């Protein structure tokens, strides 16, 4: 009988489903992220009262909260596996690409869910009007994919290092900066009631494509000794 090789798509889905099941039962990451978003926004809301923030400040605030939520929770994708000792099991049983893309998918979905929650909090606490919501949605998706992809790759890089959490943020921020600034500018433009330029969208989507392609090429070197 020939050896069955699981197609990459199915293997990615298996890793994603496994992470989702473990997160559903533990709720480590999601609880921490929701509390972080809730505490930050309610503090700001109570501090500034009825003062309206400018579009630029609102955009910066939104992406800073998303970024720090990502830093607080997304490193767990690999760090938790390393701490539990299950990383070796994945090395033995799965192809490397399935692991990185399964975890990337999980992180992006988690971040998108969290972003929806943060947006609801923005509407509730800061009375922000997202009138161009379709364009805004595209910006959020591009930004979240970028943050989720970079966070997953750097989490894989630091998983075996000491001082992982500090190293994770230090490594992720410079890599993420171009996408971060692009997302802030595009969000500020949308909040001002204007359409961002096509080049801004091309840049954000291109950045995501480069990071995902880079992960595909680089991860095997990180995965094996």
């Amino acid at each position, binding site marked *: 009988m020939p*050896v069955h090789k699981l197609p990459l798509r199915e293997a990615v889905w298996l890793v994603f489903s496994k992470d989702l099941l473990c997160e559903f039962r533990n709720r480590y990451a999601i609880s921490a992220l929701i509390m972080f978003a809730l505490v930050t926004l309610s503090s700001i809301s109570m501090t500034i009262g009825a003062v309206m923030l400018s579009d630029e400040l609102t955009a910066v605030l939104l992406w800073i909260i998303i970024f720090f939520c990502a830093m607080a929770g997304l490193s767990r994708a690999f760090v938790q596996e390393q701490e539990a000792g299950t990383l070796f099991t994945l090395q*033995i049983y799965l192809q490397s690409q399935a692991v990185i893309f399964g975890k990337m998918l999980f992180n992006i979905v988690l971040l998108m869910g969290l972003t929806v929650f943060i947006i609801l909090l923005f509407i509730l606490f800061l009375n922000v009007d997202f009138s161009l919501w379709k364009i805004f949605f595209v910006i959020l998706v591009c930004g979240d994919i970028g943050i989720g992809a970079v966070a997953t790759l750097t989490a894989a890089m630091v998983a075996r290092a000491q001082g992982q959490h500090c190293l994770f943020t230090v490594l992720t921020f410079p890599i993420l900066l171009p996408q971060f600034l692009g997302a802030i500018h595009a969000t500020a433009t949308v909040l001002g009631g204007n359409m961002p330029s096509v080049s801004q969208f091309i840049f954000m989507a291109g950045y995501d494509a480069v990071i995902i392609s880079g992960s595909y090429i680089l991860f095997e070197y990180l995965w*094996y000794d």
Partner: protein
Amino acid sequence: MNNNVVVQLINVGKKYGEKQLFQGINQVIKPGQCLAITGPNGSGKSTLLKMIAGVSKPSTGLICIGCGDRFFQHEESVGYMGMVSPEIVFYHAMTGIENLVFLSRCRGVACSLQYASELCATVGLNEYSNKQLSMYSTGMKQRLKFAIMLAIQPSLWLLDEPSSNLDGKGKEIMGVIIDTALKQMATVIVATNECWEMEYASAQITLA
């Protein structure tokens, strides 16, 4: 299962910094044969197994895993092997059956819940198969590793101290499983210092 897997170790050596763990290992292990790797603690038994598994690279030499005249690329060879090792750790948030089904599916084996349950019963875990791994003792986790080997039926069995933490009945079950694998012409490599485990071996490497 394609039970024609040959493992060739050609002048294999491993060095950590200045320390030479082992060197010049040459061995061919054919289907239906069992190789025992023995040696004191820290001599590199587990390291050699990990190198054969492809998760660690030799400092010198070459490890070839193949079938007939063809040698596999690393990602392909992973699909032929199964490993029982103290370093294989399961997901504590999942049940025994869920771990078994997940890892079997990772290997492309469509393991149903019914079949997974039967395999758990075979290794003596029937009462605990639906309990989360956090409820398992170390011996029960070791039994689960063998249930996974039964599910994926690998052509190359890599066993690192396979009887560790097993009670008498567990060792008996493990013996039957290894014996059956050898009869089905699987290639078995076992790192051990237990005399009774070495009895399966037709060849031996002793690391200093």
